[in-house]
């Protein structure tokens, strides 16, 4: 994984497979405290304590198509390489929350990358799931809530390609704005 946004896309797939109805993705960049973090929180099926303990093991996966699950181990390796960490909270029937923290300035911190394309992918591929994406950069922030978009769109689905591309550009423009103009 070359970008943190790809980890976000990957972790969000776990929430989707857990049957989540609402997925909240929050990215926080705090330069003063040298923190880069992201959280993916869902209201999916959750994990019991036994699975929660094993989930960081690459040889643990719930899928049947192959025997390894590398998503979480790769995420942990990336965060720990910068002196950060990954925290996972989960409760059966309630949901799961994964928080990855990095040192913002560390040379080994992967770039955020194309988060707009990632949000476009998860939103357009899962039009029946609600997403809230919030991005904090220093004092500024931006929030995208799919429920607001659905209220405008009515019968037109978020999976419609022209709508999906609008989402991507909307995220990009707003990120440029909170980053302080030129990107």
């Amino acid at each position: 994984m070359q970008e943190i946004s790809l980890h976000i896309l990957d972790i969000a797939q776990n929430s989707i497979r857990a049957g989540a109805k609402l997925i909240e993705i929050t990215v926080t960049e705090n330069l003063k405290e040298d923190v880069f973090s992201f959280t993916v929180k869902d209201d999916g099926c959750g994990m019991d304590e036994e699975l929660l303990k094993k989930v960081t093991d690459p040889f643990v996966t719930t899928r049947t198509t192959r025997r390894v699950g590398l998503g979480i181990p790769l995420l942990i390796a990336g965060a720990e390489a910068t002196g950060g960490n990954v925290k996972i909270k989960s409760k059966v029937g309630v949901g799961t929350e994964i928080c990855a923290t990095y040192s913002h300035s560390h040379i080994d911190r992967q770039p955020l990358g194309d988060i707009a394309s990632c949000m476009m992918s998860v939103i357009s591929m899962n039009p029946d799931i609600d997403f809230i994406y919030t991005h904090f950069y220093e004092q500024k922030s931006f929030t995208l809530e799919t429920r607001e978009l659905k209220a405008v769109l009515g019968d037109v689905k978020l999976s419609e390609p022209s709508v999906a591309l609008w989402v991507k550009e909307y995220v990009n423009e707003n990120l440029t704005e909170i980053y302080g103009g030129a990107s």
Partner: protein
Amino acid sequence: MKSIAELEAIKKKVLDNVNLRKEREDGIRVVVGMATCGIAAGARPVMTALLEEVSKRNLGNVVVEQTGCIGICRLEPIVEVFVPGEEKVTYVKMSADKVAKIVTEHIVNGNPVVDYTIGKAEN
């Protein structure tokens, strides 16, 4: 600057287009593998290119979907094309560059791009 109000215009355009379409059920399904293996291999730009191409050509009968791991991770990114009444075509080691050709030749004109298929890659 984009605003949510712009979605109204997009919605209207989509609805006008829907009225001209046949039932979505007999449409073409394009499925991208988006598990860890697919994402790490570059599925995201493939997905973006597919949405852009379908939108640009206004292909109302095509839906782009995602799936998990298909089980042949070494050939990711993988794209499967389901045309009603025809056998599924599996494209492997996809890239954004290959998307336009597949959309033009296969999805629009009905001729699978054999060079990019799994059958070709495995030989």
